[in-house]
């Protein structure tokens, strides 16, 4: 019996990455723009997504959503109020969605009939950062109630996302939210990151989000 060292040089998450690459190819050729929404629990992803879906449908765009939670289909029910097709994934304990979860739900949609597919990840600012879901855009959300230094505590997630959105801006005064400090924190951890501030509830700032979505989609599918 001999012992030897064998070079492997493989990503630990190689299987997820391969599945995600396949998904990305499928999405590209179907012309559907996919967005992965990540945040802590309670940031307001569902309300934000429900308003986004309603807006898109009202403006003649075709959109659908996949939402992940450990348990319950509460979020899927809320999102379905927009009129968009929605699928709920229950992980029963796993703290993040993986590419495999997304692939399993795609049969419910006609991808070529969609302009947008939103993925609302499990509320968690840690684990989802490692898992590529084949998305075109990853958005990290944080609310004014979570503290301006939040980005500094989660560098991995902020470095894995493309855009940061500060939510519940209608509560900023009540929380004595220091927007400049929050922007500084985001820029310290991810220089030059695009930052939006908005309220799904009042509609403030949502136009900039819709424009960003539209621009991002057009850049991929002119």
């Amino acid at each position, binding site marked *: 019996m001999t012992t030897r060292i064998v070079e492997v040089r493989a990503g*630990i998450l190689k299987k997820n990455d391969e599945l995600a690459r396949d998904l990305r190819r499928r999405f590209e050729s179907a012309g559907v723009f996919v967005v992965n929404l990540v945040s802590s629990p309670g940031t307001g992803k569902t309300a934000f997504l429900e308003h986004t879906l309603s807006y898109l449908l009202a403006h003649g765009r075709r959109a659908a959503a996949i939402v992940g939670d450990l348990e319950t289909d509460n979020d899927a029910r809320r999102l379905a109020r927009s009129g968009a097709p929605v699928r709920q994934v229950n992980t029963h304990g796993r703290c*993040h969605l993986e590419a495999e979860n997304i692939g399993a739900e795609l049969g419910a949609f006609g991808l070529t009939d969609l302009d947008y597919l939103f993925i609302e990840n499990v509320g968690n600012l840690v684990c989802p950062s490692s898992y590529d879901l084949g998305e075109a855009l990853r958005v990290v959300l944080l609310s004014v109630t979570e503290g301006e230094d939040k980005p500094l505590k989660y560098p991995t997630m902020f470095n894995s996302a493309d855009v940061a959105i500060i939510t519940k801006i209608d509560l900023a005064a009540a929380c004595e939210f220091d927007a400049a400090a929050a922007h500084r924190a985001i820029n310290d951890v991810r220089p030059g990151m695009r930052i939006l501030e908005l309220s799904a509830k009042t509609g403030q700032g949502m136009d900039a989000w819709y424009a960003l979505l539209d621009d991002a989609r057009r850049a991929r599918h002119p």
Partner: protein
Amino acid sequence: MHELSIATSIVDVAMETVDRLNASRVSAVNLRIGRLAGVDADALRFSFDVVTQGTRLEGAALAIAELPVVAFCDRCDRDVELPAANFMHCPLCDQVTGIIRQGKELEIASLEIDE
């Protein structure tokens, strides 16, 4: 707590090499994990011990090379090691630097196998 998922993935990827080489046992797994990968080494070791039971990796030593964040500073015109993962400024000249050269790695570098 996704270190358990990560540990399971390590076994999956390692087993590809084990099966390909028809190895009887793995005595060590060498990982490279960047500081920005978001994985805790201790939690990973614990999870690894759990998921390798009953596999050809059972008892394997887990060696983790923890890689610091390295960014490129265009003012200094060189790669610089950042002392913190959440402050993307050059430690030499304080210029903001968003160009990450190292730090996100989550890899199996090599295996020590018994044939």
